[in-house]
């Protein structure tokens, strides 16, 4: 390894590279292009991933929404087309049966009401919720806080509204916390204002009030409109969905084969589709990038091979002057590695620059799902190492060719 740090080694390499300018440039372009593509593609793929992640925002994606519809099969004396409602007993039953698989379980009741504050008013959705909703979809609070357990226990008449609602109902500059707004002619104290959610928005502009308060005010008894189930990370959400439905069917005397009684939307499955797409794209990126890299490295090998042929005589002279085959090999391999390294670095720099400009061009445009197109340093490092290893391996071929010729034959070459 000592020869690596010998200035003479580099002097020799510099000499031979300077002599073969055309070769050097072509070689560098070959590899540069490969790593450039890899960097740009990986960056774009990452940007897209980030874009999708932004689309799903702060939502717990391993979730399924379940509500009731009409039955489509007669069962246990009930006719088809029966309407029924989910209730708190279902929640209890699900919690006890799937407690280890369910991370969050949020029963929800919703309605639309007129909201009034002083002389301003607006028609908005009102939702009775538990604090757990904030865990399923993180609310970005601008003022105050979200509903807590105390609010639930004390049937507090408090509400958390969106920023848009705040703007519509309040004068500019008024701090809304502690102010009262009327929902369905009942006064609620505003305890929080949340900003627009990034990506998926479950409810839109909604006034959140404690679930217990909702139950009492709207007289919903034990019934609930629908529920959000967030599964544990290791749980198959699709399986959980069908399990939960089966349990609910038995609880509500619905035929096990009934396909209409329970409606659901499985966010986890939809998200998995995107994830699969991204994985596919990343695989493609790696495949294309690495294939291009290999092509580039082969180009280096090819060109080195040609130059070795061209330099047969020079190598012969060097050997007559006492160059050992090892030193000749070292020099050629080092040339190969040096060229690939320089080309690789340039490729990474160019790729990075292009990504920077892509980011600059797309960051202001919300329609393009490309956020922060970057490439991980470890990935670059791996690609770079691969490049150097390949450069070494491919350099072995011309290096071998250079020394396999007897010096006498090399000298005879004209």
């Amino acid at each position, binding site marked *: 390894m000592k020869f690596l740090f010998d*200035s*003479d080694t580099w*002097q*020799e390499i510099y*000499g*031979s590279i*300077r*002599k073969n300018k055309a070769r050097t440039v072509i070689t560098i372009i070959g590899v540069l292009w490969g790593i450039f593509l890899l960097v740009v593609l990986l960056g774009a793929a990452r940007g897209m991933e980030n874009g999708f992640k932004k689309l799903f925002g702060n939502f717990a994606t391993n979730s399924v929404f379940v509500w009731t519809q009409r039955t489509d099969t007669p069962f246990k004396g009930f006719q088809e087309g029966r309407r029924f409602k989910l209730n708190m007993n279902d929640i209890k039953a699900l919690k006890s049966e799937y407690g280890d698989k369910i991370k969050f379980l949020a029963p929800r009741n919703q309605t639309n009401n007129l909201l009034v504050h002083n002389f301003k008013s607006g028609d908005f959705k009102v939702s009775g919720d538990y604090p757990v909703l904030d865990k399923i979809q993180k609310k970005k609070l601008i003022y105050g806080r979200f509903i807590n357990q105390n609010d639930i226990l004390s049937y507090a008449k408090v509400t958390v509204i969106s920023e848009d609602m705040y703007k519509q109902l309040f004068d500019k500059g008024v701090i809304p916390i502690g102010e009262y707004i009327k929902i369905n002619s009942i006064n609620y104290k505003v305890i929080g204002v949340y900003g627009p959610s990034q990506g998926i928005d479950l409810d839109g502009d909604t006034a959140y009030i404690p679930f217990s308060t909702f139950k009492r005010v709207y007289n919903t008894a034990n019934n609930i409109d629908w529920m959000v189930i967030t599964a544990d990370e290791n749980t198959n959400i699709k399986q959980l969905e069908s399990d939960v439905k089966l349990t609910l069917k038995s609880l509500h005397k619905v035929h096990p084969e009934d396909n209409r009684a329970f409606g659901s939307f499985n966010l986890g499955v939809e998200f998995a589709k995107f994830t699969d797409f991204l994985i596919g794209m990343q695989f493609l990126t790696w495949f294309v990038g690495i294939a291009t890299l290999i092509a580039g490295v082969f180009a280096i090998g090819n060109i080195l091979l040609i130059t070795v042929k061209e330099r047969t*005589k*020079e190598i*012969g*002279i*060097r*050997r*007559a*002057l*006492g*160059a*050992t*085959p*090892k*030193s000749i090999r070292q020099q050629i391999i080092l040339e190969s590695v040096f060229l690939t390294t320089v080309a690789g670095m340039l490729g990474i720099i160019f790729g990075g620059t292009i990504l920077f400009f892509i980011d600059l061009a797309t960051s202001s445009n919300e329609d393009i799902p490309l956020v922060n197109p970057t490439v991980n340093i470890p990935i670059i490092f791996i690609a770079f190492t691969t490049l150097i290893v390949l450069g070494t391996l491919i350099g072995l071929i011309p290096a071998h060719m250079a*020394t396999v010729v*007897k*010096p*006498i034959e090399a*000298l005879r070459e004209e």
Partner: protein
Amino acid sequence: MIKIEKLHKSYPIGKDSLHVLKGIDLHIKEGEFVSIMGSSGSGKSTLLNIVGLLDVHDEGNYFLNGQLIKELNEKKAAILRNKFLGFVFQSFNLISYKTALENVALPLYYKGMNRKERLKIALDYLEKVGLKDWANHLPNELSGGQKQRVAIARALVTKPKVVLADEPTGALDSTTTDSVMDLLKDINDEGMTVFVITHEEEVAEQTKRIVRLKDGVIISDEYTKAAKAV
């Protein structure tokens, strides 16, 4: 210095083989100035290549500086070449993208000498061949005679035991031929063994011993007037 006993060498040509050297016996002592004469095809270049460790012989013994040369791998051969032998070629064989100075310094590089030191020594040798002012010129900026002098400086720079010159004047006109031969004579006068291959009678006559080769055998081996004059 160089001792050759019953040396045989043949080259395969297709299915047949060409027997080039047919039992050469030659003993060159230290400080001798020997020329090998012979028409083309006489085997003189083959002999030089074997002596120069650029090629291997088939049969017989070859002692270089008392060391039996046998089953030499490339690495050992390279080290021995670097240590004992200096080459001067007909076509100069300078490396075109290196300056005269760098060309002269190259054998020292393979010897493992640092750059500063070897450039200093190389410059001394260039001065010796009268080309100090041309040190930073590339070979294509030099005349044939100058190139050959650079090549001689390069051959000498490692202080070898033997300088092997393969038709050193073959590409030169008569004036430059004389100057190159004078240089070789000077080197020999300093005690260096010089081994020249040539087909020019005038060149051979300037050496001290002429070995004539024909069809792979030595037909005569005699000392010249130049030798007797000393």
